[in-house]
């Protein structure tokens, strides 16, 4: 209210400043002053009048709200009265006038209209679809030496809908923001992919997150699939994390007050998602820690490095085995370390025409426990490198190579899903991408897929679109 008065007074005084320019003699000036004073008084009186009305209406509304059952009707009436009064105040405070010259405008942006749905969250949708042609049956395609989760499988042949996502994002109050992301797979199963609250007001560079969210480990893990540089996840992400690890838990991040970017994070998860299962340790089955560092090298290039660690316990992790009618089961501990390096280049720091991004990640994985009740322990490694080059506006080319090396298994597990039959799973991928805008893209991706013993050729067409207010993407 005070603000409104102030604005009105300001406008009045602005008018007072402008108008004397047209007055030639003192008499005119005096007359105009008088007029202005009069207008000023009138407005003040009107505003005061409306203020009292508004106060009364607000009080009425409050009284009505606190009153019991039949109060709702009168409250609505009182509120609409308050609203009308508010609108009138606004009209008085900003009397319609000729648009004044640009540089004399005091204007803060106009206040948005008060309405019941003004605080709606930002709702965004992500759609994507595939056409896939694999020379071997995608369902039966294994990753040699690994028992993989459902999400790590190849995209089915022919037309299919990829994951469709709807997300809702908004500030909850001055201290928290909320994010909800629901995805539907191509068989119409809804899944709460992320649902978390995040602190926005912690001091000293801390942020706390709680709920279900994607872990901050590695480089790709925290990104939604639509934000990946290729149509699918690299082999290590498929084999070790079922494409990406998200679970229910809490996360604490701290950004160091240094000149280079230096961020520390730690997470504590329930441990219900691959590579965890069964919410071991009383529902605190997974812990992670990560460090991110990054800076500019010069105006054109920059880097980001990350070291991440995940420890989890799987209590009865079931994985589908295409060679057997019965699911495999793993109970035991997994330790996973990831080293990540990202390099980005854009001439003069302007990625509009040309830009290049290179990513390399190395994974160490240690498993210890019982697979199908047979004890084993082994160390695996995996890595990938990828580069994507935008050679002209809207067009990019990408290449990726990824490889896995599974550790030795005891003789008792020979012939099981953990047996790689002496074969290192690897895949080479080439990508051509056309962006219709920053909200839409088409991809053609070819993979020479040697993850199973016999090679497979996979061609993918993919479209991905985003619409609605969608947050900016990470580096």
């Amino acid at each position, binding site marked *: 209210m005070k603000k409104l008065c102030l604005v009105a007074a300001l406008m009045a005084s602005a008018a007072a400043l402008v108008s004397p320019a047209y007055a030639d003699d003192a008499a005119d000036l005096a007359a105009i002053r008088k007029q202005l004073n009069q207008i000023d008084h009138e407005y003040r009186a009107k505003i005061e009048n409306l203020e009292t009305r508004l106060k009364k209406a607000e009080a009425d509304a409050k009284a009505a709200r606190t009153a019991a059952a039949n109060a709702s009707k009168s409250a609505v009436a009182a509120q609409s009265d308050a609203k009308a009064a508010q609108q009138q105040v606004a009209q008085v405070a900003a009397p319609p006038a000729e*648009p004044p010259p*640009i*540089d*004399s*405008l*005091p*204007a*803060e*942006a106009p206040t948005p209209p008060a309405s019941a749905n003004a605080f709606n969250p930002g709702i965004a949708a992500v759609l994507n679809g595939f056409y896939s042609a694999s020379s071997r049956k995608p369902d039966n395609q294994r990753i040699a030496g690994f028992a993989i989760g459902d999400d790590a499988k190849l995209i089915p042949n022919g037309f299919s809908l990829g994951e469709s996502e709807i997300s809702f994002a908004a500030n909850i109050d001055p201290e928290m923001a909320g994010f909800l992301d629901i995805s539907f797979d191509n068989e119409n199963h809804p899944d709460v992919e992320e649902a978390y609250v995040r602190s*926005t007001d*912690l*001091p*000293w*560079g*801390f*942020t706390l997150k709680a709920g279900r969210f994607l872990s901050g480990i590695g480089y790709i893990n925290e990104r939604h699939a639509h934000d990946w540089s290729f149509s699918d996840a690299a082999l290590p992400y498929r084999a070790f994390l079922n494409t990406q690890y998200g679970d229910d838990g809490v996360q604490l*991040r*701290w*950004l*160091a*007050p*240094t*000149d*280079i*970017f*230096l*961020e*520390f994070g*730690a997470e*504590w998860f329930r441990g219900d998602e691959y590579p965890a299962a069964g919410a071991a340790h009383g529902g605190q089955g997974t*812990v992670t*820690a990560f460090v*991110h*560092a*990054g*800076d*500019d090298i010069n*105006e054109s290039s*920059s*880097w*980001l490095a990350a070291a991440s660690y995940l420890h989890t316990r799987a209590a009865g992790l079931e994985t589908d085995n295409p060679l057997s009618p019965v699911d495999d089961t793993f109970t035991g501990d997994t330790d996973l370390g990831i080293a990540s390096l990202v390099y*980005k280049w*854009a001439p*003069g*720091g*302007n*990625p*509009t*025409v040309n830009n290049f991004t290179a990513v390399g990640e190395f994974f160490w994985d240690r498993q210890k426990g019982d697979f199908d009740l047979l004890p084993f322990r082994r160390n695996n490694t995996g890595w990938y490198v990828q580069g994507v080059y935008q050679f002209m*506006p*809207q067009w990019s080319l990408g290449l990726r190579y990824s490889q896995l090396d599974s550790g030795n298994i005891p003789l008792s597990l020979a012939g099981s899903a953990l047996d790689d039959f002496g074969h290192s799973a690897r895949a080479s991928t080439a990508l051509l991408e056309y962006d219709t*805008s*920053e*909200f839409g893209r088409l991809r053609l991706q070819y993979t020479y897929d040697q993850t199973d013993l016999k090679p497979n050729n996979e061609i993918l067409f993919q479209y991905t679109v985003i*619409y609605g207010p969608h*947050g*900016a*993407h*990470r*580096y």
Partner: protein
Amino acid sequence: MRKLLIGAALLAGLAATPAYANLSVFACEPEWGALSTEIGGDKVDVYTATTGQQDPHQIQARPSLIAKARGADVTVCDGAELEIGWLPMIIQQSNNSKIAPGQPGSFEATRYVHLLEQPTSLDRAQGDIHAAGNPHIQTDPRMMLPVAKALAARFAQLDGANAAYYQSREADFEKRWTAAVAKWTAEAAPLKGTAIAVQHHAWIYMENWLGLHEVVPLEPKPGVPPSSGYLAEVLQKLQAQPVKFVIRAAYEDDRPSEFIASKANIPAIALPFTVGGTDNAKDLFSLYEDTIHLMLGGLKK
């Protein structure tokens, strides 16, 4: 876990102790960095996040920017969604609540002037349009005055001890600026009514100021790179309605405007668009001097 927390808290405490004497400014674009320096003088430390060679619509949310935003007391940005593709991510990742939208530490220049071309309908089919209106206000120097006033008030609010200093610098800037604008306006008189083509539809405030007449943009829709078919259409239009020259911002791809220039036999001019866009545009004053100088040169050819 607990050790980590304690360690982090200790580090934070260490870092927090040497309270910075100066107001730390994170300026999104060079023109707002330059204005912050004009108003803040030696009481502010200004970090400018982008250069005149970069497209302010499309900046990668680089780690270095996040690190700089972490310690900022105030962001001085254009607003009107110009930075929507990168700034929100930087602010979120900076874990710095001082500069969150709506806080005193978040300053948006476009909130203090009247924006032109406020769309009557919002539809992504229209290309890269801004809901609040055309954000490129810095192409008209007259816009600097209300922004400077608001910025001085904001600095004074955030750093009360130096309020008088900011106000007096603002008053001084206003005096020098008003004189400079009058001089530029007089110098640019020959440009009045000149028909021009523009690469990106980013110059309406300048056209408004100097009375330039924009015949056609080289982008079919804002932010959409032109196809060769569209450029042929532009050429046809230019035959019916000839223009004196075609302008682009220094950071923009030079091919579309150079192509049109060679076909229509007119000069293509790369204007600085912001401080540092050309070698001569070293500060706020030389930005407009160079802009007018370059366009007057275009008239002669």
